[in-house]
């Protein structure tokens, strides 16, 4: 409490309660920030030498291209294969089997033999075999409407229609980006000690970023081939305003449940940043101005946020209304010339505004504080194997106390009610992708994935309650291994408070897109566009500097 502190006494703000932060509605209100992976990727690779090494496309834009980032002896090369695709075969669904283009990020400089090998495998995606030399894999489809329009206009010597460009925001959409050993790709252990990829998903971000450049080069090339004398290149500023679209379905949701320590480290970085910002006693004029500038300019990202989802339209409307009110309050009624101004501001936000607005402003508060966020970015990966073993020498009583402390709301849920036990997560047979279904209407509930953590934690608690407190966990597990997976999690959450979603992931009210939004906000995605409660479209790198501009770019590009 500010009023009780002596003037020079440092403020000690507590980290926010996981039982508040880790609720799905709150996690689903997160927005991009300085901690987001695409922004930290650009910062890390800004000094690397960028090059287009190969560009062999025919007049229609089909063929092979290679782009690279190089520093000293380390080289990462994106290999692109653009293919002709029949209109009827184009689908963004993960169950598709053909795409306009397919990509892989290669570790080093690919030889001719590598490209020949990959040409056979990469376009087949999940049905192809990659090797330890390849790091990430993806595919993308054109937004045919935008791509063809841009080709048409450029070939006539004109720039494309601004309204169309703004309303869509990209030339291509990726539909999945794979890494970490999938389909034979390099396992993480092979590369995890490389300093440039401390911080999660760096190489996935690199792939998407270089794919974006490929889309510009391809569209210019096709326009030029169409009308060599008259065609012009896509204006650099229009290129910058375009990103890469992405369709994301439920595949992402189990990830955050299956990687508890990683989830903790992401959230913990965000929470630590907020805590440290709230503990700043005197806000400098520069920092105040930067915060206000980013906040005000960022409104453009909300007003240009297009979606047909009523759910999201309502969220955007309410966010915009709250932010406009909040900015008026900042301009007219709030003074930064008080101690711990950001703390005061945060407390005001919690009192007055919705979760979406609170988390939006929390992201904005980080903008002036590179010194706080930069060290945290390095803490956002996790050595998950270290926490795998269960401390079986601990007692039943200790485990019960952990459950009571760490899952207080979950323990109050009645899973005997159908509404709380309505859905089950499973892996679809045709594409090996996670899906969610009603257990009372659909078949297959007996093959449920271990993602009903809340229900199983409650079961564990009930079982522990009729077990002798003095028993060791080893003795308990000897006859109760059905709940082993949640025993492991309970001991993880004891050490990592933000490792667990504090909600029921199988209840009637579950909004799976909240789980997707959480992950995508850490990726740095903008303009979430839910197409149902189970999948959404986003845009990445919209407004980002082009590779040739990286050496000297504005870190706050996202608000320009």
């Amino acid at each position, binding site marked *: 409490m500010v009023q009780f502190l002596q003037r020079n006494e440092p403020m000690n703000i507590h980290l926010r309660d996981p039982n508040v932060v880790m609720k799905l509605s709150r996690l689903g209100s997160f927005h991009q920030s300085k901690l987001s992976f695409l922004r930290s990727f650009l910062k890390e690779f800004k000094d690397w030498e960028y090059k287009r090494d190969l560009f062999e496309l025919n007049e229609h834009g089909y063929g092979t291209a290679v782009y690279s980032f190089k520093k000293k002896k380390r080289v990462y090369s994106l290999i692109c294969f653009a293919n002709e695709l029949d209109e009827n075969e184009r689908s963004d669904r993960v169950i598709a089997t053909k795409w306009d283009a397919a990509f892989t990020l290669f570790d080093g400089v690919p030889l001719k033999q590598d490209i020949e090998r990959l040409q056979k495998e990469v376009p087949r995606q999940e049905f192809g075999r990659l090797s*330890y030399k390849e790091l990430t894999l993806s595919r993308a489809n054109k937004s045919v409407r935008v791509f063809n329009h841009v080709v048409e206009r450029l070939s006539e010597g004109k720039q494309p229609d601004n309204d169309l460009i703004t309303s869509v925001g990209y030339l291509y959409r990726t539909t999945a980006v794979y890494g970490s*050993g999938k389909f034979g790709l390099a396992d993480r252990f092979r590369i995890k000690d490389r300093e440039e990829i401390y911080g999660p998903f760096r190489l996935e971000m690199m792939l998407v970023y270089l794919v974006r450049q490929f889309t510009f080069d391809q569209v210019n090339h096709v326009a030029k081939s169409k009308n060599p004398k008259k065609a012009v290149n896509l204006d650099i500023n229009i290129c910058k305003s375009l990103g890469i679209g992405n369709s994301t379905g439920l595949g992402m949701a189990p990830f955050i449940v299956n990687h508890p320590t990683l989830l903790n480290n992401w959230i913990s970085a965000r929470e630590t940043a907020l805590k440290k910002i709230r503990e700043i006693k005197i806000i400098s004029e520069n920092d105040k101005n930067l915060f206000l500038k980013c906040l005000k300019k960022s409104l453009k990202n909300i007003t240009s946020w297009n979606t047909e989802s009523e759910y999201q339209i309502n969220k955007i409307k309410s966010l915009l209304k709250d932010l406009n009110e909040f900015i008026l309050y900042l301009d007219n009624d709030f003074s930064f010339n008080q101690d711990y101004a950001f703390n005061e501001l945060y407390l005001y936000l919690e009192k007055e505004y919705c979760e979406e607005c609170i988390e939006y402003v929390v992201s904005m508060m980080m903008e002036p504080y590179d010194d706080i966020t930069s060290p945290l970015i390095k803490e956002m990966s996790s050595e998950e*194997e270290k926490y795998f*073993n269960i401390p*079986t020498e601990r007692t039943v009583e200790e485990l019960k106390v952990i459950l009571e402390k760490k899952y207080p709301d979950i323990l109050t849920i009645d899973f005997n009610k159908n509404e709380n036990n309505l859905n089950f997560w499973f892996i679809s047979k045709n594409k090996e992708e996670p899906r969610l279904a009603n257990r009372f209407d659909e078949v297959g509930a007996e093959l449920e994935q271990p993602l009903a953590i809340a229900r199983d934690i409650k079961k564990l608690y009930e079982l522990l309650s009729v077990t002798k407190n003095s028993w060791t966990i080893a003795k308990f*597990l*000897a006859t109760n291994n*059905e*709940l082993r997976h949640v025993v492991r999690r309970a001991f993880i959450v004891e050490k990592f408070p933000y490792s667990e979603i504090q909600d029921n992931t199988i209840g009637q009210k579950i909004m799976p897109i909240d789980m997707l939004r959480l992950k995508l906000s850490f990726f740095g995605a903008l303009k979430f566009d839910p197409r149902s409660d189970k999948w959404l479209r986003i845009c990445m790198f919209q407004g980002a500097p082009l590779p040739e501009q990286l050496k000297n770019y504005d870190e706050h590009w996202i608000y320009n």
Partner: protein
Amino acid sequence: MRSLSEIDTVSKRSSRAAGYSWGIAEEIGKNIRLLEIFSLPGIKNLNSFFRKKKELRLENINIIKQDNEADKNEYCPIIAGVNFLDQIKNLETLNEITFKKVSYPLLFLPFVSRASEVIGKRILLKMDDREFLLNFNNNIYSNYTKNEIIESAENIYLKVLENRDSFEEKEWNELYKLSEETFVEENDSLKESGAGAGLTDND
């Protein structure tokens, strides 16, 4: 070549399909990955085990004692292994542990390797005539290098090895003496200004 991540995932899912709980399936995924890292035939043995598991009518063992013998059939290597790992802090004091009749014993081995890391002691594992020295889950030293399926072991003998030097004191002293040749003799004034100089240790 299959990545370790693929090996882990497929082993885990197939273990669940074979009837183990998700928690145990997670352990098996990690274990098969471990065997394959150490160039031991994990996938080969797991696949064969699951193919024959139903007809084997295996016995489960919950609480592990010094000497363990299955009644009629063989022990399940997974349940024996998971309980061995869970109970290792108690078993450590027994020093020597034996199992008679264990099915697919290579699937039992990674649990013992991980137990070696948990207690910080090497464990010697004899599987009939095959010997494995499990070094804190960092590596495995063995006289067995065949890429084959081992369907059963009549006797498994485990010995927890105390943390002892592998060399004589005389050998250590000789080497230490040689290492001293990298040191430089200090003069008196440097000796007087070293850490702690001038302070009373009884203050």
